[in-house]
C-alpha cells in the first residue's frame, strides 16, 4: 500500500489519471467521499475512463457511453471487463494496494 495522491487532487464526483509503475490508473472520488480505482483505459476503444461521468456505482466512458461497475470492473453494457485496484483513504492521502 502506498500513497498515490492527495484527495484534494480529485474533485468530488470526478476522476483523474495517475501513472503507477508504467501503468495508468484512473482514480475516482465518489460523492459519498469514498474512492475507486480502475485501469485508465476503456477496454472497448481505448477511451480515457477518468474523463467519464460517475455515480456511486458506475463509470461511463466518454467516447461511446459504455458503462462499468466501479467496484467489480464488470461491464454493464456488453463489453470486456475492466481491471480494478484496491484503493483507500488514509487522512488526506489516497492509498493504492492492499
Amino acid at each position: 500500500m502506498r500513497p498515490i495522491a492527495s484527495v484534494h487532487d480529485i474533485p468530488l464526483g470526478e476522476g483523474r489519471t495517475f501513472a503507477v509503475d508504467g501503468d495508468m490508473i484512473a482514480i475516482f472520488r465518489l460523492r459519498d467521499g469514498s474512492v475507486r480505482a480502475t485501469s485508465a483505459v476503456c477496454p472497448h476503444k481505448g477511451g480515457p475512463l477518468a474523463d467519464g461521468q460517475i455515480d456511486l456505482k458506475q463509470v461511463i466512458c466518454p467516447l461511446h457511453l459504455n458503462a462499468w461497475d466501479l467496484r467489480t470492473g464488470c461491464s454493464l453494457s456488453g463489453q470486456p471487463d475492466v481491471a480494478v485496484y484496491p484503493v483507500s483513504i488514509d487522512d488526506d492521502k489516497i492509498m493504492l494496494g492492499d
Partner: protein
Amino acid sequence: MRQRLVVIGNGMAGARTVEEILARGGDFEITMFGDEPYGNYNRIMLSNVLAGVEDESGIFLNDLSWYADNGITLHAGTRIERIDRFAKRVYAEDGTETPYDKLIIATGSRAFVPPIPGAHRPGRGYHQGVFAFRTLDDTRAMIRYAKEHERAVVIGGGLLGLEAARGLQNHLPHVTLVHAMGHLMNTQLNFAAGDTLRKTIEEKLGIEVVVDGMTTEILGKHAVTGVKLADGRVIPCDVIVVAAGIRANSEMAAASDLPVERGILVDDQMRVQDEDDIYAVGECAQHRGEVYGLVAPLWDQAKVLADHLTGVNPLAEYHGSQVATKLKVAGVDVAAMGLKEPEHPDDEVLTFAEPKKGIYKNVIIRDGRLVGATLVGDVKKVAFLMQAFDRGLALPEERAELMFDLGGPAGEVKVEDMADDEQVCNCNGVSKGTICSTVQSGCKTVSGVMDKTRAGKGCGTCKSVVQRIVEWAAGGEVEEDPAASYYVPGIPMPKPELMNAIRLHELKSVSSVFAKLGGDEDAKSKMGLASLLKMMWGGEYVDERDARFINDRVHANIQRDGTFSVVPQMKGGVTTPAQLKRIAEVAEKHEVPMVKLTGGQRIDLLGIPKEKLPEVWADLDMPSGYAYGKSFRTVKTCVGSDFCRFGVGDSTALGIALEERYQGIEGPGKMKLAVTGCPRNCAEAYVKDLGVVAIDGGKWEIYVGGAAGAHIRKGDLLTTVSSPEEVIVLTGRFLQYYRENANWLERTYAFVPRVGIDKVRAVVVDDSEGIAADLDAAMEASVGAYRDPWKDRDEPATPGQFRTSLPLIVLPQVPVRA
C-alpha cells in the same frame, strides 16, 4: 384448506386452462372430467392423422402420467349430467357427485350434422358409411372404413371439410366436396378468393368440388350409395363425411339453469353471467356475442382465466380475439384474417389476382390500420400481415409492400426473417442474435436491452428495428418500461412534473435533485439535469462540475484518441484575413495534427491535448464556437444579397445577428441554424433545427424541425415574416419553447412532429397560450447570462481540470494527413 377446482371437459380448453393455472403456482385440488376415454390431445392435428402425416401418438398433449404428476384427479370417459349451482356440486352419469369451490366448464363443441334424411338410422346412430369429423374415434373409424371403399363425398366446404377431403384422398381414390354455399370457405373468404381456391383444389389436388350443392338426402339401404342434391343430381359414393360446422356443447349448462344462447354466456373474466364461482372457456363459451371455433382465442381465454383464478391478476380481462385462419392442406396455401370485404365506403382495398397461378390477395385498411387480409396461393407476406393485424401496426406508405416484397431494405418489418448474425445497430455493431439472447436472459424492456447491448444508442435510426426484435424475441411479453416517459432515467418523472418539483423545492444543483427526488445519483442522468437546471435558474444555478460531460468540463469536443477539437466562433461563417492568419499561426505553433473546415462553416483544430487547451485558447483569443455541447451551435449562411446575383435578402447579416444573440445557449439537444438568401437554399436552411429563407418582397420564411444527419427531415414552415427583427424574436421564442418542453436529447426534428407544427405555431407565433412574453423574458435572461467559456482559462475551475487522462501506452490515433 385448498380450494376444490372442478373442470368439466378434458379437451384443449380445459387442459390448457389447468396448465396455465399450474404455471402461475395456483394451489387447488383439481378434478377433471373428460367425455373421451383418453388424456388430452390436439384436436387440430386430427386432419394430419387423417392425412397420414402424423400418427396418433404424436397428437397427445398430456398423457395420463401428467395428471398424476400434477396431483390432478382425472375421470376420463365420465360425462357430467348436471350442475347444482346452489349446493355447488356436479353430478356424473354414473351417479357420483363431486363438490367444488370453483368450477370451469370447458365442454367444447361437437360436429353439427344437418338433419338430412338418411343420415341417421333409427336406433343405430349414423347410417353405415356416414361419419362426423370431430374426435379421435371419428377419425379412426373413418380411416378404417375408407380404406375398404372407393368414393367419398365430404359435405361442407369450410376449413374442416377441405382438410377432411384432402385427408381422405390418402385412403380412397375418389373424393367429391359438396358445399351448400356459392364458394368455398365462405366464412373467411370472399367470392373471388373462394373461387380461386376451388380451381386450385380441383386442378392441383384432383378433388371434385360442387358448390351451391344443398344435400337433400343420403341414399342407400344398408350402406350409403350416394347423396342427392336439391337440383336432383345424384353423386354416387360409399363414404360420407359431414363437416358442416360445429355447435357448442352447452346443453348440460342450459339444463342446469345457466344462461345459454349459442354458447354459455361469460363476462370479461370468463365468469358465467351472474355466477360467482362458475367459469366457461373455449368453444362452449359465448363472449360479447362471439363463439370461437379456433384455437388462438382459447389460449387467450385460458390465460385470463388463470390470471384471475390464481390471483396473479384478479382484474385480468379478455376483450375478444382477432381471428386469423390458415388452411392446413399441403400444396394449397390460404390465410385469412379479419374482414373479407370492405364494409365502409372509405375502407381502402387492394386486390391482386393472377388466376392462372391460383393467386388471389386482398388487404383492407381502415384509418391506416389493417382490418382484413386474404391470401390464396401465395402466403409469403402472411407473417407480417398477421403481426400488423394483431397489433395494429403502422402500415408502409407504399401500400403494395403489404402484398409483395418490393426489394430494397425490407428490414422494415420482417425481423423474424433476419439472420441471427445480421447487424442491426450499425453504429455499435450489435446483431439480431445478441439482442435476442439478451431478451432470453430475462431483459424484457426495450430500453433495458438497449442499455445492455448499446443497440440503438448511436445515431438512433435503428431504434424501431431494435424495438421490433425485442418484441418478437419476447413473444409479445415485452414489459413496459416506465422510464421511457422520464426526462432522465434516474428521476422517475416526466419533464413538466420534474420542472414543477424543481421549482417547488428550489432545487438548484444536480446533487440536490437526486437527494430530494431520485434517491441514488445516476451518472446517466447528470448531464440532462445540469442542462435543465441551468436553463431554469440561469445565474442562480449551482454548478457542480461532476454533473458536466467531459466536453462541458473543458469546453472542447473529445476525440477518439482522448484529444480534443477546438472550433473558434466564426459568426455566420464569415471570417477575415486577420482571423485566418491567427488561426494559422496557432496551428503551426502547436503543431495541430489536422485543420479542417466543418459543415457549420468554421475551422476545426483537431488533436489538441487536454492540457494544452487553455494555451491554445489564449493564443487564439477568439470566443468559443460551442462545437461540443448540447447547445446552440452555429448559423450557417450563404453570401446573401451583398454579392450573390440571386440573393433577395441579406442572409449573412441576419445569420451573424442570430449567432451574436443566441451563442452558447444550452438546450435538450444541439441547435443548428441557417439563413439562406433565396429559396435555392445554398445554406441548407430547410434541413436545420431552425432555418430562415429569404423570399422575394423582403419577406423571410422560418422553418423549424429540419434535420440532415442520421435522420433527414425537411423543416415545417413556422411562419413568414417581413423583417429580420421579427426573425430574431421568433427564433428566440421557438428555441425557448423547445428548451422548456423537449425531452433530454430530443432534437427539434422529433420534438416538432411530436408536439405538432400547428401547436408550435399557435404558441410561438399566435401566442395562443399567452406565454410569449414569458418565453421571450426567459430567453432574454439566458442571453444576458452568456459568458465565453474560453475566457476562463487562467485558473482551472477544479484541481486538474486540464490534467491529461491519456494513457501512456500507444492507442489507435486519428490518422494525420501530411
